[in-house]
């Protein structure tokens, strides 16, 4: 893996100058069924921060992450990404915003019957004219960006494999490459390692950390394991029943802090262990 940043290098002056700052002011999300998933969350994340979101199942972690690229609309409050008011966007402007927010998922969310390369090219949707994707003719530049994204996560040699034929760790790397090929300024990750075994989980977390450090991306990652949050992120946000109950440096978060977030004593399944 090269020390330089091949993807932004290839993009040259095309890389979006947009900032990765995220601001939430009194954000509330109520689902159609009536569930209040977020209650008055206010928070401000500076560009380049590596932030974890922890909390019990159902505490609103996924909801918080999904409001940022408007996969879940906010019910009230204000949400800014860079200078843009996310809830005001729709159609083309919303797709453009999403184009510079990468996202990775617990279940990888790949089109498993297509090749690794065409999965990564999904990351170029918002950045290239639609006719190119409709005809299946990515521009040389889009292809180069995808190739370098694959190279930076170390699976360029699998570019022509069927995505479904890869292992879990490899699939998550393809998903990271897909997000990277968007040349994003923000990276969202919803439980990215929850489906992986401990060593693979650590190496995927290291990939995320490297992306944060090398490219200066703002990273917001949902985790339910205390030690991963402490080890890989600098700032931790704790959610409990949709309310923000913790916001501070992740490394300093004590077991008591976690017990307060979880509302119960620490258990064995709250840590992954086997740090590399």
């Amino acid at each position, binding site marked *: 893996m090269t020390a330089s940043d091949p993807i932004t290098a290839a993009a040259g002056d095309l890389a979006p100058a947009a900032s990765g700052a995220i601001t939430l002011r009194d954000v509330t999300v109520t689902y159609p069924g009536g569930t209040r998933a977020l209650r008055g969350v206010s928070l401000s994340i500076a560009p380049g921060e590596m932030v974890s979101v922890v909390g019990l199942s159902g505490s609103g972690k996924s909801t918080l992450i999904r409001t940022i690229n408007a996969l879940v609309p906010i019910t009230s409050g204000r949400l800014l990404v860079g200078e843009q008011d996310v809830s005001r966007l729709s159609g083309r402007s919303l*797709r453009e915003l999403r184009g510079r927010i990468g996202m990775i998922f617990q279940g990888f969310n790949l089109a498993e019957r297509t090749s690794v390369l065409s999965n990564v090219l999904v990351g170029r949707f918002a950045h290239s004219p639609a006719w190119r994707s409709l005809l299946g003719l990515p521009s040389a530049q889009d292809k180069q960006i995808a190739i370098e994204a694959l190279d930076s996560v170390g699976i360029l040699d699998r570019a022509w494999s069927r995505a479904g034929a890869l292992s879990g760790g490899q699939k998550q790397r393809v998903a990271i490459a897909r997000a990277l090929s968007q040349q994003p300024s923000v990276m969202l990750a919803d439980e990215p390692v929850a489906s992986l075994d401990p060593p693979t989980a650590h190496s995927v977390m290291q990939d995320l950390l490297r992306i944060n450090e090398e490219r200066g991306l703002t990273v917001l990652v949902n985790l339910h394991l205390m030690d991963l949050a402490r080890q890989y992120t600098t700032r931790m946000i704790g959610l409990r029943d949709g309310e923000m109950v913790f916001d501070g440096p992740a490394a300093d978060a004590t077991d008591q802090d976690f017990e307060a977030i979880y509302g119960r004593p620490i258990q064995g399944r709250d840590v992954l262990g086997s740090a590399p």
Partner: protein
Amino acid sequence: MSTHAQASATLPRRPTHRVRTALILAALIAFSVATCLPAIGGVEIDLESITRNWRNGASKLQQLAQPNLAFLPRTLGPMLETLAMAVVGAVTAALVSIPVTLWAARPSNPHTVTRQLVRFVVNIVRSVPDLVYATILVAMIGVGTLPGVVTLILFDIGVVIKLVSEAIDSTDHPYLEAGRAAGGTQLQINRRTVLPQSWPLLTNQWLYSLELNVRISAILGIVGAGGIGRLLDERRAFYAYEDVSLIILEILIVVVLIELLSTTLRKRLR
């Protein structure tokens, strides 16, 4: 934690539904009997006519058992016509079915109004029997292969679109969320992810419709829609049962061959 050494574990008694099964059976039998009673408007099943016409039927069967092989050369042209109708119909329907299927499935078309509209039209197209299409089309555009091909296309798109769009509806598509999160339009997402994921469903159904087309188009000729069926109808009108027999035999062989081919291909796809 329970130790599996405990011998006291017993399987709960398997639930039985004897009474329910018996009631359902009784209802089915009663219904079947009722439909055969002319007194209450059921279909008349006259078993006596079988014995009455037996002598007549036996001689026909005898003729049918001796296919006239000398007639073979005259059947080849119409048989090729039937095959051509089947292929042209299946291919045209396949092309039409690609966009319309994606239009009719929820994951590829979240817009409820257009989706329901497409489904409504497809359901109407599907509910008309193929022989009705053929008869009407022959009346409209005249005797020949064209009404046959159009009938096959209508029949095929009904089947393919309905079955494949429902199959797409009932599977998970996690990559949709990823495409949306990356800022893709629904069209981009459909073209680059939903469509490649659905190829096996589509090709499977296309091959099956080709298989059905060969069978159907053999019959369509009877109402004047071209192909081998028209020859069959003509020979039957002349009471040339040896020729009819040869044609039936030929249809049988072709249908079996096409089925074999399509089954092998479909197995490969899986």
